């Protein structure tokens, strides 16, 4: 009977502890809000197989999940991170949604004896996310955006055949190119989907705790 009581405790002990955020924020309100450009999360393989940077590639040959995994970690990290950044007070211009050239749209409709079908195609073009960092700053400046937020997901060895992941989010000043604040979270890779989601929440909560603590839901750090 006592074994039954110990078992859940032992299982609970196996759960990975929530990651903690390391926040470097200078005092003052100068960079606590405003319109900034946000870039998609990039993955850096630091001493590990670059394939690990593509969730879709690491599951090749395994049973596929109901929703196919993306080719980068950005679709898992960016929604949570951006939601938290905006609730912290920033207005975000999304680099990958900002076209540098006007696209060409063609809407077509064909009707044959009562039945019809329609199609829409829009030519893809370069976006701000495709530019080099120097050019990104020029674009941000031309749009009156005061900063650029970058997000880097680094995968590195953690010993004993394990790997760890670190998410570092930085706000860069457009004029001086200096980092205005940095928030970092890391943990052993718990799962290819779980860890990016946990780290995004951790970094987002770190930003909220530092810049807008009243907007934080749940645990701070």
């Amino acid at each position: 009977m006592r074994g039954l009581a110990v078992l859940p405790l032992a299982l609970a002990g196996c759960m990975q502890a929530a990651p903690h955020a390391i926040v470097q924020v200078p005092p003052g309100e100068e960079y606590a809000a405003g319109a900034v450009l946000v870039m998609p999360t990039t993955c850096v393989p630091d001493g590990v197989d670059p394939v690990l940077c593509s969730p879709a590639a690491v599951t090749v040959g395994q049973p596929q999940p109901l929703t196919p995994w993306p080719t980068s970690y950005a679709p898992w990290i960016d929604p949570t991170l951006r939601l938290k950044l905006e609730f912290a007070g920033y207005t975000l211009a999304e680099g990958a949604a900002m076209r540098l050239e006007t696209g060409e749209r063609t809407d077509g409709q064909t009707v044959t004896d009562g039945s019809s079908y329609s199609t829409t195609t829009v030519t893809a073009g370069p976006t701000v996310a495709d530019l080099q960092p120097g050019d990104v700053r020029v674009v941000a400046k031309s749009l009156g955006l005061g900063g650029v937020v970058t997000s880097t997901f680094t995968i590195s060895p953690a010993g004993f055949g394990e790997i760890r992941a670190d998410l570092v989010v930085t706000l860069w000043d457009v004029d001086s190119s200096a980092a205005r604040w940095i928030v970092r979270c890391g943990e052993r890779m718990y799962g290819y989907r779980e860890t990016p989601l946990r780290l995004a929440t951790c970094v987002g909560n770190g930003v909220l705790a530092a810049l807008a603590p009243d907007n934080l839901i749940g645990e701070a750090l």
Partner: protein
Amino acid sequence: MRRAALLATLATAACGVEKMPPIVMQRQGAAAAVKRVAILPAECGTTVCKGVDALVAADLAFRGYDVVDLDRLAAIERRRTEVQVSVQDTSGPAMTTTSTRTVTVTGAMLSDVDVWSLRAELAAMGVDGLVRVRTAELEGWPERVEAMVRVTRTADASLVWSTLCEIEVSVLDLANENAERAVRCALAGAAR
């Protein structure tokens, strides 16, 4: 017998565990209101994202905002080509007619233009507010989904109002259903 009954009761109770109530937060910005708003297209171009954008557009229109739909306004004069083809077949015992009409409309809508042109067009149309809708899955147990609707002033990016809702969801629920529920919850909590 008593133990079996106890276990059955526990199992039934576990099935009926109630979810946490939603957590809703609202923020009000400067007092000056905005009238004409555009919903910014998000990087996420999935059907789910477009669906929740449409949901918010309808709600804001109901509240009296003048919502500009960037997907429905032409950025330039668009070119329309219409081709009508009729084929009459008289080779058989009875004459048959087949008709095909193809309409092609070419040209950019406002959602397709470059960022500088979009900015100029929004200013020319008198759009004084921008709306952003976001949803995100939160990792943890139980699983949660968060949604936020945020309205900012075009001129200085200052906050007009924002509302956020975090709901507990089941692992069996579909992602699009969760996103829609969270957005509806956020809208319900938004200041009138």
